[in-house]
């Protein structure tokens, strides 16, 4: 309990929010409404899985919003060229992996600070997309693009199942596979990990490639919810995802973090906007509340560790 203070406190906050909604606005719990919230949150969750790996490895990636937009557009164009859906998915995921590999080469290969590298790639990819597409939507997509050509209900179910599978796989890998433990080891102390026979730079590179892959998958799952693809999609996604991971207890100093906490963080942050609507509060408060949650969550941690520090 004490060790997982943050994870529990986020889960409790989520439950409190849901109870408050149950008391004040029971119409929030209509199945349609809940599924809409979950399908919006699912792509964010997948990106947050990747971000948790990156942050656990003591790096950060602020370029995923731009990667997300590029992957969405590329997937849309592939679908528009009548490619089969499997190939479209491949395009989104592989292009994501390529962008991730580029960051990985810069960070792991050349040893550059990840925040600066991804700041540069964030600006470059976003402006490259604007230059190339000039803000044009990808329209007139074939019918089997939206919801994979299934009915909306089946499409939503498939989307949620994919997100859940990816999440559980990452949870399993981080706990039981040596690769997952390597990420924790490198994030805790890269030099100690190297002496223990782990190759920190290889691990870092793989983490960035995974981040890109997850971003591509998230972009695909986000794009199929709509009949056409918006080139401005994913703006600010990086901060939303980092916020979810941090609120969920992933330590920015590396080496610590549980995926379950991240799940609670994603759900908590994605419930705020609809909750404001149902509580008839002005929706413009969403960002301010998100910011307060981030500050409160880290302040609670800091306060606790300061108290413990003075006790010992």
């Amino acid at each position, binding site marked *: 309990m004490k060790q997982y203070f943050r994870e529990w406190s986020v889960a409790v906050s989520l439950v409190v929010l849901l109870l408050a909604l149950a008391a004040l606005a029971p119409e929030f719990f209509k199945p349609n409404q809940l599924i809409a919230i979950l399908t919006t949150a699912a792509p964010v969750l997948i990106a947050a899985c990747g971000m948790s790996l990156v942050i656990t490895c003591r790096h950060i990636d602020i370029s995923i919003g731009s990667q997300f937009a590029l992957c969405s557009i590329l997937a849309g164009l592939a679908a528009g060229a009548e490619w089969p859906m499997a190939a479209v998915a491949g395009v989104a995921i592989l292009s994501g992996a390529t962008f991730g590999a580029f960051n990985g080469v810069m960070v792991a290969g050349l040893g550059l600070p990840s925040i600066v590298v991804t700041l540069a790639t964030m600006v470059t990819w976003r402006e490259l997309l604007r230059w190339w597409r000039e803000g044009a939507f990808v329209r007139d997509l074939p019918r089997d693009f939206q919801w994979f050509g299934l009915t909306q209900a089946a499409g939503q179910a498939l989307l949620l199942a994919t997100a859940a599978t990816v999440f559980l796989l990452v949870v399993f890998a981080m706990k039981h596979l040596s690769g997952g433990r390597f990420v924790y080891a490198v994030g805790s102390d890269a030099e100690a990990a190297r002496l223990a026979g782990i190759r920190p730079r290889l691990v870092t590179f793989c983490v960035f490639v995974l981040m890109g892959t997850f971003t591509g998958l998230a972009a695909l799952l986000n794009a199929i919810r709509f009949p056409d693809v918006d080139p401005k999609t994913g703006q600010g996604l990086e901060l939303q995802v980092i*916020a979810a991971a941090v609120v969920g207890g992933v330590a920015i100093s590396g080496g610590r973090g549980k995926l379950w906490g991240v799940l609670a963080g994603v759900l908590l942050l994605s419930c705020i906007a609809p909750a404001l609507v149902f509580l008839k509060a002005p929706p*413009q408060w969403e*960002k*301010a509340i998100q910011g307060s949650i*981030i500050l409160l969550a880290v302040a609670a941690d800091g306060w606790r560790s300061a108290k413990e520090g003075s006790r010992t």
Partner: protein
Amino acid sequence: MSRLHTVARRASEGIVRAINVARRFELYRSEPLLAIVLLVEVLIFSRTGANFATTGNAFEILRLSTEIGLLALVMTPIILTGGIDLSVGSLLGLCAILFGKLWRDAELSPWIAATCTLAIGAAGGGLNALLITRLRLPPLIVTLGSFSLFRGLAEAITRGVDNFTGFPESFLFLGEGAQVPIFAAVAVGVWLMVHRTTFGRAFRAIGFSPEGARYAGIPVERRLTLAYVFAGAVAALAALIYVARVGQAKADAGTGYELLAITAVVLGGASIFGGTGTVHGTLLGVVVLAVLKVGLTLSDQPSELAGILTGALLLVVLSGEAVARLFSERLGRAKIARP
């Protein structure tokens, strides 16, 4: 085969020699590299851009880059301490609309409203400083939170639609050229603080090692507080200049400015891990970015190209040193291994 081998060896030795020459003259330091980039930019744009090489345009470039320049200037001490402040752009937005609110709805005179705005900015920086120093939280996360909080408050106060216009002429002159001397004054002030006072040395020392700085008798918490509060106050000043230049205050003022400011500081040679960096490097970075933007516009190039080139420039400048190091390490090792 062996001839090919000789050619390859000659070539690699040539590369190593070139790298060593570049190192001796410190060409890998950012300032000389940036000065060269600036020179190239000016040469190219004075050919392609109509009216580029005029004094009027030079003044215009300074006028347009004042806000980002101010943010980059105060970001420099923060990055020197090994911190970062993502919230300055949002704080600029919040200060802009609070200034509008104070002037229009509380009916204060523009100058009293401006003074209050500066105090609000300092308080915003103070919130960051409090969380960073008292609770020992990482600046990246604290300012990520206040980034959302400040922008969110700005959106909530204006409900996303309200904006403030019709400021008196006596205030608007702040954005019509009067900001350039203010910018120059702040630049000189920050340069003196960072390079000629013990404060500046304290920032570097904290960036190298906070624990070491503490043992050396530096009041680490007070110096960090100074850096973040100063950044908040100057973000408010930038907000006033922004409002005066654009003529209106909206909740989205200054979106993305924090990233441009950080880009300028890093281009200017500051290490994001703290400890090294100069104010004149930052100023060069600001000018290089501003000239790139204005020059491309005057040369009828799409504005996106400026963003692409900014990102590429950042990557090239950063990886230049890293690639050179890798090259000379690899080749140095190969030389020893050769019988």
